[in-house]
């Protein structure tokens, strides 16, 4: 069975987000005064094969811990859906 996992990786709160800061300033200069905060993170889309959604999530979690996420400064969230062939 095929699954699509979306992993959203963001900086932990308290960790300086240099990209977010720069984007925030830039958007303000462009006139977006309504903006109060910007944080920038990364998103990873995985297409993977696993017998069950639980197993797929477990795999995705493993990949986060092993490579995709720097647990020191980042946290993550996984969303899963079935992928049709």
């Amino acid at each position, binding site marked *: 069975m095929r699954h699509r996992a979306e992993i959203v990786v963001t900086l932990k709160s308290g960790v300086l987000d*240099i*990209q977010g800061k*720069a*984007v925030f300033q*830039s958007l303000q*200069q*462009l006139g977006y005064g309504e903006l109060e905060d910007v944080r*920038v993170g990364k998103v990873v889309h995985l297409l993977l094969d696993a017998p069950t959604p639980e197993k797929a999530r477990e795999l995705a979690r493993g990949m986060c811990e092993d490579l995709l996420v720097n647990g020191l400064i980042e946290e993550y969230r996984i969303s899963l859906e079935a992928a049709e062939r």
Partner: protein
Amino acid sequence: MNVSVVVFPGSNCDQDAVRALASFSGRPVAQVWHGDPALPAATDLVILPGGFSYGDYLRTGAMAARSPIMEAVRRHAYEGGLVLGICNGFQILTEARLLPGTLLPNKTLTFVCKPCTLRVERTDTPFTGAFRPNQVVQFPIAHHEGLFYLPEKELDELEQRGQVVFRYASPEGSVAPEASPNGSLRNIAGIVNERGNVLGLMPHPERASDPVLGERDGLLVWQSVAGWIEGGH
């Protein structure tokens, strides 16, 4: 020739460009702050220098392309004035849509700084008149995002219109993919707009303009521009 170099917060090759041009032309080079609304009157050539404007956070060149001075640069280009974007300057020009395409991360996914050989594809632009046809020259590169990208069809059109001005090449002039240090499509290192007055170039001619530093092929670019201006264009 009157040269203006735009300084963005995070530019770091601005002074190098100023020095190279001042020493070539023997005339002062204007420095224009990114927040300024206008270019100095009588500017012939605007240089958008290399560096990491706004930290290059989000996307390289994205924020600089939206800074106030870029309106003036756009107008300058529209009126036929010369614009040269070097490295980050090239990235800014694509983000500002003054040039087509975009620059993706190098195929190595690393920053690459080294001398590079390039082949000149056209000698009839304002920036290349002093080169010999197909001349192979050496300029250093120093970038993390230098892989020129356009969808295939648009790339063909770009080629047909002759907008590709420099390609990464072997010292013998072959433009096989291996000669490209960053995986750039069709080895593209520099392109002009359709009108030919805006050049984006990943390699650094200003780093190849001083014999003490070893390379001097960059002088050909300045000679070309000077010749073009003196020629009354």
